[in-house]
């Protein structure tokens, strides 16, 4: 047997996966409810909860922007990593292409999120 | 035939074999070591030892106490000079294991903790919860990986020793996975194959404990010594014989008969007290406790279950927390195998065969009468157990004498010349042919299991806790008959890859010969001593005629020849073996 002692790069992706997993476990359900169910149906939440003024103000603040960025980017990284491993689990032997997609999409999403937030400026 | 050239070959990779291998490797890294075992090392039966390993460590204890407990416990049939060496070297070996990572249980201050055990004046049993043998074995196995000169032959079944020019020069083994034969040339060979408890029906031993190494040495003219002394452990699971460690009693467990009475006080072990007291009651020696069970059974005071008579091992008063800390495996076994919660219910127990006190005759340096051949551990009789082994001396023995056997074999190997390979191969080929005959014997009609069962049943009847000439003779006759029938054994499986049917047949051959040595040694010892107790006019110890080691010599197809050898006495003259208040009165 030859044990491959080449250092794995997985820590980068694993940490992003873990952070996203923890964040989505903590705030995922409530965010989905707010944006996807509560506000659209006016359920438990006033209709103007997600008004442009409110949300833009949130995105305009450092802390709010950071939160939005973390949620969007880390959710992507979490999902991408898990999907990549699931392809392996299903015996699809993901090659470089799959890896590119599973980690490239989160990277792209991260950049877009940064761009979108930056374009709004900070107060 | 494949040939591997080693300097030292070690057969058996349990505690003793591993310790010996490490000793050889440390003695001289240039020596090539072949470590041959029919199982992977961590499966060896050392793994099942529970309670602990003896070494003097407390300031109120002394080497003399350990010596006296051992020699008195062995009913003075011990080699006293060897016992002196043993007790003096136990502490450093236990510390050595500690340095190698053995997870000994600790006191709050970080020092190693010790517990009480049967027949001991002062607590000196080092323990790792109740999995001491397991932890020692894994520690030794994993440590052995550090030494590149140890080449393991895992799952290689040793079928013969190869001797030439009056000395041992190697071994022949079957590689189990392929069925191929291999000759391991060696200038010195150490046998460390463990005991032979499976020749009895109800026993605590693993399936691999079949006396292989004993039979190998025996066939090559080395005497088996003191084979009549088979230790019955008093607290075993009825039916399966699985062991509930002596530590159950060391921690304060009680033995109760059907009236809930601590019956040991009726057998010279009292008076009964609530707290465990060394050498009293449940902390008496194993032979006495097993004998007391037998008498209780005769008096109709035992309980009765699907597997016959039993008594209760009561641990309830120790409380669940302490049981889980000190006896976790016992807890698990009682729950899994018997559906009993030992914190709430007593555990049914009865005596079962546990340990082979006798074995391959070796001197105090582990050397047999065949030059180059050494033996160590349960398969050997180095002389420290006498007629009854003290609990926790066997694990210490593996280390103390494993190391000694290793260094002795190493120095022998360095001075011995290489043998003539051609003649060794010829001898090995003859052994191979004999073993292959078993496969070719297509019209055999005797089932392995039938013969094994008849042997085990007969051994229990003739060589149990109490013995009578008539039943011992019947056992001797039965064994002779079984050896005849063995020639007609049927090995159904003719294949080569992992053919365990074949291996079981070979093991049965070993067992029958070792069983014969036991039975004939027993019938010839006309006295009662330690684990050999007779009820036919020889109820007393007879130092005049039998303060001697029995020596069983292989005698081809006939019954073994029994001779006697002197016992080395240095500082302890045979005295009264007393425990409880009587022991205190006698000054023990």
């Amino acid at each position, binding site marked *: 047997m030859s044990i491959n002692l080449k250092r794995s790069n997985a820590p980068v992706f694993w940490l992003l996966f873990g952070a996203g997993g923890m964040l989505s*476990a903590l705030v995922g359900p409530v965010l*989905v409810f707010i944006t996807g169910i509560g506000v659209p149906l006016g359920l438990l939440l006033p209709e103007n909860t997600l008004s442009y003024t409110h949300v833009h103000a949130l995105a305009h603040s450092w802390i709010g922007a950071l939160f939005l960025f973390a949620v969007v980017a880390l959710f992507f990284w979490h999902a991408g990593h898990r999907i990549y491993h699931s392809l392996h689990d299903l015996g699809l032997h993901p090659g470089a292409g799959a890896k590119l997609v599973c980690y490239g999409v989160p990277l792209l999403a991260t950049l877009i999120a940064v761009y979108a937030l930056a374009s709004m400026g900070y107060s | 035939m494949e040939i591997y050239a080693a300097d030292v070959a070690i057969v058996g990779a349990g505690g003793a074999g591993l310790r010996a291998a490490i000793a050889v490797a440390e003695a001289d890294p240039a020596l090539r070591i072949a470590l041959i075992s029919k199982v992977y090392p961590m499966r060896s039966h050392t793994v099942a030892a529970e309670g602990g390993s003896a070494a003097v460590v407390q300031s109120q204890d002394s080497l003399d106490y350990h010596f006296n407990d051992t020699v008195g416990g062995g009913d003075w049939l011990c080699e006293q000079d060897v016992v002196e060496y043993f007790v003096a070297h136990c502490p450093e070996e236990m510390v050595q294991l500690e340095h190698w990572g053995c997870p000994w249980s600790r006191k709050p201050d970080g020092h190693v903790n010790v517990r009480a055990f049967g027949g001991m004046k002062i607590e000196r049993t080092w323990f790792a919860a109740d999995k001491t043998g397991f932890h020692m074995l894994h520690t030794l196995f994993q440590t052995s990986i550090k030494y590149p000169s140890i080449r393991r032959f895992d799952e290689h079944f040793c079928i013969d020793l190869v001797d030439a020019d009056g000395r041992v020069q190697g071994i022949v083994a079957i590689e189990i996975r392929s*069925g191929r034969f291999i000759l391991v040339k060696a200038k010195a060979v150490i046998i460390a194959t463990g005991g032979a408890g499976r020749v009895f029906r109800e026993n605590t031993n693993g399936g691999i404990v079949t006396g292989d190494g004993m039979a190998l040495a025996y066939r090559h003219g080395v005497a088996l010594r003191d084979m009549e002394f088979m230790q019955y452990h008093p607290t075993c699971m009825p039916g399966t014989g699985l062991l509930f460690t002596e530590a159950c009693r060391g921690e304060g467990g009680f033995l109760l008969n059907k009236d809930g009475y601590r019956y040991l006080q009726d057998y010279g072990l009292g008076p009964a007290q609530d707290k465990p007291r060394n050498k009293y009651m449940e902390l008496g020696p194993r032979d006495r406790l097993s004998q007391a069970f037998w008498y209780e059974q005769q008096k109709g005071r035992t309980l009765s279950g699907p597997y016959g008579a039993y008594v209760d091992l009561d641990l309830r008063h120790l409380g669940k927390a302490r049981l889980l800390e000190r006896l976790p495996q016992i807890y698990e076994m009682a729950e899994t195998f018997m559906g009993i919660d030992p914190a709430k219910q007593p555990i049914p127990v009865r005596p079962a065969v546990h340990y082979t006190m006798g074995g391959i005759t070796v001197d105090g340096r582990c050397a047999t009468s065949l030059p180059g051949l050494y033996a160590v551990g349960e398969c050997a009789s180095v002389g420290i157990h006498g007629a009854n082994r003290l609990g926790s001396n066997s694990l210490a023995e593996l280390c103390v004498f494993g190391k000694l056997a290793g260094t002795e074999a190493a120095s022998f190997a360095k001075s011995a010349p290489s043998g003539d390979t051609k003649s060794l191969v010829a001898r090995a080929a003859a052994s191979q042919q004999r073993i292959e005959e078993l496969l070719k014997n297509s019209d055999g009609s005797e089932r392995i299991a039938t013969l094994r069962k008849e042997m085990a049943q007969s051994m229990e009847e003739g060589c149990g806790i109490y013995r009578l000439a008539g039943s011992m003779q019947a056992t001797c006759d039965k064994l002779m008959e079984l050896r005849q029938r063995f020639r007609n054994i049927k090995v159904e499986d003719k294949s080569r890859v992992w053919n365990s049917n074949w291996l079981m047949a070979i093991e049965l051959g070993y067992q029958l010969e070792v069983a014969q040595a036991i039975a004939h040694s027993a019938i010839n010892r006309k006295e009662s001593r330690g684990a050999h107790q007779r009820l036919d006019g020889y109820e007393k110890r007879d130092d005049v005629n039998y303060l001697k080691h029995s020596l069983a010599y292989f005698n081809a197809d006939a019954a073994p020849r029994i001779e006697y050898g002197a016992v080395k006495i240095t500082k302890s003259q045979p005295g009264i073996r007393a425990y409880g208040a009587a022991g205190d009165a006698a000054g023990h």
Partner: protein
Amino acid sequence: MNTPAGNGRRPYMRSMQGWWRRNTFYVEYMIHEATALFVAAYAVVLLVGLVRLSQGQAAWNAWLAALRSPGSVVFHVLVLAAISYHAWTWFQIMPRTLPPVMLKGKRLSAAAITRSGLAAAAIVTLMVFFLVRGLWA
């Protein structure tokens, strides 16, 4: 058959095909892994929202309007179920991923760690909910 002595070894390797159907533990594992698809989908929704937000009020309102479509609501109910299941399993596994957590010299049990995780999620959920409601109501 009739192979020469000792050459009969032919270790057999079994296939891993369909391994995840072999017991309920694996099936459950695959289901909780599959929640990643829903997390990904929701992340896309949020990313689009973020981009729309940066494009101004009209774009943002269009995004909000899209969220009100029946299809979107049904989709988010599914996402809520999946992501809640993800949260549940995440905290079930958490004791296996942490070094021993000591509390007053005693090791915290696996069940206690899981309970703490679930409790934290519940608290965060309520906090976010009331923060959002309180701030903007």
